[in-house]
């Protein structure tokens, strides 16, 4: 009996304590209050990177950008789950990086939609993103949201395998300024400056970056630089004003590049890109927001005349408008977003389209997206996009998803999506000769006017869990994607020695698993690791799809604030072997598995000054990633940042 009492006592005490423990702590209750109020009152956005998203969303913050020490925008994406980055210049000389989501990296990867503050960045000629020409500076980026998986129901065509949204800093607070200088190996030098100020009714930010660097080393002779130089100048403006209840955002930017090229036929190129954007957001009530956006962008590329004296310059420009209305109703349990968009894209060239110097594409679309909170733990969402374009045809995209969050820290999701990859101007109307080596213009590319949109079907499921007071995040996603009527560039018969055209008959299947972990140990202290496994099957057996995707990728790194105002960060990534291939040439290259290591150390002796030393590709002097006969060099750079 005594033994029983001794054993029963802790149980009894536990039972007595249980009601007290079941009571929410005061802090938990306070956090719950603010979370509920946030859901009830703040303005709704379209796709927020939260537990409630139907696709996995990864976010790169301004702090991570500053801690990374990277020089190029695309290097920010290298170590993220589900993404693949290859540095290399296509034969057109204009696309230094190939960024892909969920496989099939190639220089004309047009299944990925890249946005800058919501404005589409794809080149309307071919549907690709020309990363080196994006008129944005690293110092202006507030965050980058990477949504993996189809999102065409909201964003329209080409949002097939993912959407990357680059969001720039909105001026806030009193007058402040920043200037930075850095220099490094490979004749690298960069100066940048930015200033901003804002008040209650408006704000203004101006920024500029000027960079010069030597060309990339040649694969055949690494000490020799294949490109003699790259000079890049970027300027941006961003302002906002509050007019009554409406907020108007204005932004503009220009990027100008001069660079040397590997080809002796056109040894030098120039690219100029500019854009203007106006955005209006107005609440129509406590649960209703109207957003209107108008933008224009233009890109000019000119290769200095070749030996035959031909004008090979080209230009494209685009006008974009979009309006959407978001309403929360049924006491916040239902959220409806609907809207419409119109786009006019034009491409002018004296050599790309045969005898016709101007090709245009008009796109109109309407969309509706609905979220329903069925129970406090289960939500369903669905979306529909209807789109038509004179060069791309008509298509419907849709999405359905179920989210189940049995407890606040854990969310499971399953989704089915249909998105379409639309043919672009070049796919339909191309008609030009190209160099097949040693200046011999023996190749011909012909467009195909009967191309249709490629329907992409995606099934995926995932889990996201938070632990240790939400400081530790785990995420797991599995997906199966089928792209039918895939647009391929294939060899055909024709008037020249080597003839290429686009066809629409292939089927590509992608399967994968993505796992990620991030632990935020405190301010300025975080570490992460992620793993991506991808396999590709292709009906026609194209090497460019079957073998270009590394089967396994592992990344890990940290960012750690140290004593004495020091800070260290490191990113390391291992990539399985792959075959480098290009849609714009016959060359292929087997790239063995490799590690890449980037690191940065900084010291802030005072509030206004930071000194840093950073390096990319540290573990070897040169690495080949692509088929362009160029290597990615090790880069060591150092510099200073001054803030007022």
């Amino acid at each position, binding site marked *: 009996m005594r033994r029983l009492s001794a054993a029963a006592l802790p149980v009894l005490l536990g039972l007595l304590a249980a009601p007290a423990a079941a009571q929410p702590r005061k802090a938990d209750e*306070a956090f719950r209050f603010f979370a509920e109020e946030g859901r009830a009152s703040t303005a709704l956005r379209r796709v927020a990177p939260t537990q409630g998203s139907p696709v996995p969303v990864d976010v790169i913050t301004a*702090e991570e950008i500053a801690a990374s020490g990277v020089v190029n925008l695309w290097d920010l994406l290298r170590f993220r789950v589900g993404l693949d980055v290859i540095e290399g210049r296509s034969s057109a000389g204009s696309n230094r990086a190939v960024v892909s989501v969920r496989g099939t990296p190639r220089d004309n990867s047009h299944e990925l939609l890249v946005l800058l503050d919501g404005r589409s960045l794809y080149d309307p000629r071919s549907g690709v993103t020309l990363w080196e020409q994006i008129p944005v500076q690293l110092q202006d980026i507030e*965050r980058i949201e990477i949504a993996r998986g189809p999102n065409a129901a909201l964003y329209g065509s080409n949002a097939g395998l993912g959407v990357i949204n680059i969001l720039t800093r909105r001026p806030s607070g009193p007058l402040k300024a920043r200037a930075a200088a850095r220099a490094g190996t490979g004749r690298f030098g960069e100066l940048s400056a930015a200033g901003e100020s804002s008040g209650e009714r408006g704000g203004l930010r101006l920024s500029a970056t000027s960079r010069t660097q030597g060309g990339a080393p040649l694969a055949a002779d690494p000490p020799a630089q294949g490109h003699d130089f790259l000079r890049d100048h970027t300027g941006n403006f961003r302002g906002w004003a509050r007019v009554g209840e409406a907020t108007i955002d204005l932004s503009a930017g220009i990027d100008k590049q001069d660079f040397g090229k590997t080809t002796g036929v056109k040894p030098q190129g120039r690219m100029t890109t500019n854009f203007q954007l106006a955005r209006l957001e107005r609440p129509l009530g406590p649960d209703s927001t109207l957003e209107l956006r108008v933008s224009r962008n233009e890109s000019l590329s000119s290769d200095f005349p070749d030996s035959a004296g031909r004008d090979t310059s080209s230009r494209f420009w685009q006008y974009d408008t979009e309006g959407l209305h978001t309403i929360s109703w049924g006491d916040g349990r239902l959220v409806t977003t609907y809207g419409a968009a119109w786009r006019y894209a034009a491409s002018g060239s004296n050599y790309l389209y045969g005898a016709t110097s101007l090709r245009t594409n008009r796109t109109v679309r309407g969309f509706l997206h609905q979220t329903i909170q069925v129970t406090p733990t289960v939500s369903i969402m669905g979306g529909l996009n209807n789109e038509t374009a004179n060069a791309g045809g008509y298509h419907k995209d849709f999405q359905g998803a179920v989210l189940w969050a049995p407890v606040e820290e854990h969310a499971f999701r399953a989704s089915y999506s249909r998105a379409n990859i639309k043919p672009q101007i070049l796919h339909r109307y191309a008609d030009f000769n190209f160099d097949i080596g040693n200046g011999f213009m023996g190749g011909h590319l012909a467009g195909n006017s009967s191309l249709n949109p490629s329907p992409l079907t995606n099934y995926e499921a995932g889990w996201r869990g938070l632990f240790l007071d939400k400081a530790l995040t785990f995420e797991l996603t599995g997906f199966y994607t089928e792209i039918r009527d895939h647009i391929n560039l294939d060899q055909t018969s024709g008037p020249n020695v080597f003839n290429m055209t686009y066809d629409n008959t292939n089927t590509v299947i992608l399967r994968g698993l993505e796992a990620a972990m991030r632990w935020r140990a405190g301010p300025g202290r975080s570490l992460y690791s992620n793993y991506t496994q991808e396999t590709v099957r292709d009906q026609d057996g194209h090497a460019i799809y079957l073998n270009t995707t590394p089967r396994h990728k592992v990344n890990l790194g940290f960012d750690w604030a140290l004593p004495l105002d020091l800070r260290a960060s490191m990113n390391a990534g291992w990539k399985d072997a792959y075959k480098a291939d290009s849609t714009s040439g016959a060359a292929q290259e087997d790239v063995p598995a490799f590690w890449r290591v980037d690191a940065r150390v900084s010291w802030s002796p005072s509030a206004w000054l930071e000194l840093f030393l950073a390096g990319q590709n540290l573990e070897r002097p040169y690495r080949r990633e692509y088929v362009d006969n160029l290597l990615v060099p090790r880069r060591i750079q150092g510099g200073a940042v001054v803030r007022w």
Partner: protein
Amino acid sequence: MVMRSALLALLLLAPVAARAAQALVVVSEPLTPSFREALDGFLAEWGEPVDTASAGRALPPGSRAVVVAFGGRAAARARRDGTPMIVALAPGYRDEGRAAATVRVAMTPSPERFISALAAAGVRRLLAVREVAADPDFLKRAAAAGERAGVRVDEGILSSPDGLPHLLRHDGVLADAVWLAPDPGTVNPENFGAAREFARARSLPFFAPAAGLVMDEVRGDLTVSFRECGREAARAARELLAGRVTTKVVYPPAAGDITAVLKSTSPSASR
């Protein structure tokens, strides 16, 4: 208090009494302890019968002299009515073009009281973190009051949900105290933890955004309790009915149990 809360919960679920009261109280769902505490304070101060309704249900028919809304959802529900309104515990609510009089009960003490609490704590430069969409008037007034009292208030504006560590590193380097404004977009466990770690690493006082978040190494000088918000809502409703309210925002007194709050903080937080 427990009995009163239980009674209130029953009242919210029960049909409205036949005799319409002068005031209608609308409460957000779910009826969490925060709202119960505020309602308790309201009932204690008001002392008269009220009609009550949940924001998740249709408002009871009949006209009243004043509507008191607790929470953003309740305010959104009640704003469609043309009755003068008191809004409390709704830090994200914005009164957008409502014709009838609306008085908001702040979740902070008055800017002058706010500054005097900081001055008493020996603070000379405060980093006040708020979200970009939050109402800036409070900090503007606090900055003006601070100029007179020798306390500088720097606004750190949070423009992204994950931006606090970056903001603290860049805007917090010269501050000798940190405060998170009671905004829905600012207050969450991640931001609270980051601010507390930042203050702890630099031996700075960290002022909590709400009374419930006063804990070890976190001070409560700048907080008001939910109960006081409820009491202030009752006082404002009475003033509104008497035609004496001229301001759009009223401030409850600071936490009455500050002494107890300060005792609970560790010595390292006091400078």
